[in-house]
């Protein structure tokens, strides 16, 4: 018996044992999807938040539109628009040599999740940067630091600490939302579970999947709490 069948065997669930391997490889797909999209989204969000606050007016307006659009529409709809909608222009993608990307549900989900979480994270970072008192920036400039240096060395480190908690929440939201990837034929944890249910008609498999998600979210929440405690240990009253 391989390790992935063991949990099902241990709790005495035949379905969980039979589909255990599929579910754990699904869990890995979920993990990959979320880890890559949240990381890429974070990089994108830093740029977006800074440009939104200090960029030229046209850039600010465009970023505003971007965040409003992606925060105002459901992730499921965005995913369908990318996977089915952009997939419609197959000839065009073949011409520009990108069809391999839009053909794969995994890449489509990755793209959708990245632009979606970038919009949310950009708003989180914007709020965090904005709540740093203006005097910090002025003080840094008065000390002769360049604008970029003040932003990078004075404002950002403080803003990141403020953004830590909402960013952790966003990570958890993304783990949960990633379940919609199963609706574009992707076998993430949810997709594998749907398959198991469709073949066995045993509802308990959904409960085991719920338990796996719950444990995953709970672990991340605790690790994040520790991280926050560690990163703010120099601050008073904590």
């Amino acid at each position, binding site marked *: 018996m391989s390790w992935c069948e063991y949990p099902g065997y241990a709790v005495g669930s035949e379905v969980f044992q039979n589909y255990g391997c599929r579910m754990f490889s699904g869990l890995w797909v979920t993990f990959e999807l979320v880890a890559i999209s949240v990381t890429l989204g974070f990089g994108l969000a830093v740029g977006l938040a800074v440009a939104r606050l200090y960029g030229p007016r046209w850039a600010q307006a465009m970023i505003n539109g971007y965040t*409003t659009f992606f925060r105002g529409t459901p992730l499921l709809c965005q995913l369908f628009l990318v996977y089915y909608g*952009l997939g419609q222009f197959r000839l065009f993608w073949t011409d520009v040599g990108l069809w391999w990307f839009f053909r794969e549900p995994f890449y489509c989900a990755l793209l959708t999740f990245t632009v979606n979480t970038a919009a949310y994270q950009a708003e989180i970072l914007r709020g965090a940067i904005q709540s740093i008192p203006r005097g910090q920036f002025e003080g840094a400039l008065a000390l002769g630091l360049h604008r970029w240096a003040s932003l990078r060395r004075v404002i950002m480190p403080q803003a990141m600490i403020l953004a830590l908690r909402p960013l952790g929440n966003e990570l958890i939201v993304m783990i*949960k*939302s990633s379940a919609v990837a199963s609706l574009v034929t992707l076998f993430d944890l*949810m997709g594998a579970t749907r398959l198991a249910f469709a073949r066995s008609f045993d509802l308990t498999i959904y409960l085991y999947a*719920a338990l796996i*998600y719950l444990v995953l*979210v709970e672990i991340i929440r605790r690790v994040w709490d520790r991280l926050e405690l560690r990163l703010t240990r120099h601050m008073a009253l904590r």
Partner: protein
Amino acid sequence: MIEKLALLGFGDGGWGLALLQGAGITISIALATLPFGLALGLIVALGKRSDNVVLRWLATGYTTVFRGVPELLTLYIIYFGVQILLQRLWEWIGLPGNFSMPPFVAGMVALGVVLSAFSSEVWVGALNAIQKGQREAAAALGLSKGQAFRLVVMPQLVRVALPGLGNNWMVLLKETSLVSVITLPDIMFITTRANAATKEPFLFFGAAMLIYLFFSLVSAWGLGGLEARTNRGYAAFGGATR
């Protein structure tokens, strides 16, 4: 181009009317879920602040579970699970035929349960923001516990909780898109069907996006107005401008 746009119209072969009906379903399930989810959330919040250890433990467990499990999964579990349970009950009573769970009710219960878990956090925060002295003063004036809650705490609670609850509403509005998977004919369900019939996914999912965006923008505008209204007595603290 024009022929394609005609697919969104109300003429022959146009999906305009179906899309409008889908939008109606989306809004009605969101509106039907809201009072149920918020009321349950408030009860859970009161449970979390209760003096009874068991109640506190139950309420905390409830929010941990429904905040940690994907909404899609909750929806499936409630749709299929309650269906099976009620079917057994149906047979046990000895009624003939099959019981089938209306997708609208299943969607409403699932979204409502998730909303209650998230809104309970908002309620707890708001309840903590109301000073103890308010209840004590109410008691000193001879109000009963229930009266104090209804007449003194609640009006203040709404003001503090509104921004958070507004957020919950925006999330709920977008989550309704998931009910399409249990065959409720909302916007997503209609556009998926339209896509299957016309092979124009970009047009239809794009249209669905715009409908959702419209709802979100109207909600944001309405909530802004509501917040300004609940803050109108607090202008001196800068509340009106928030």
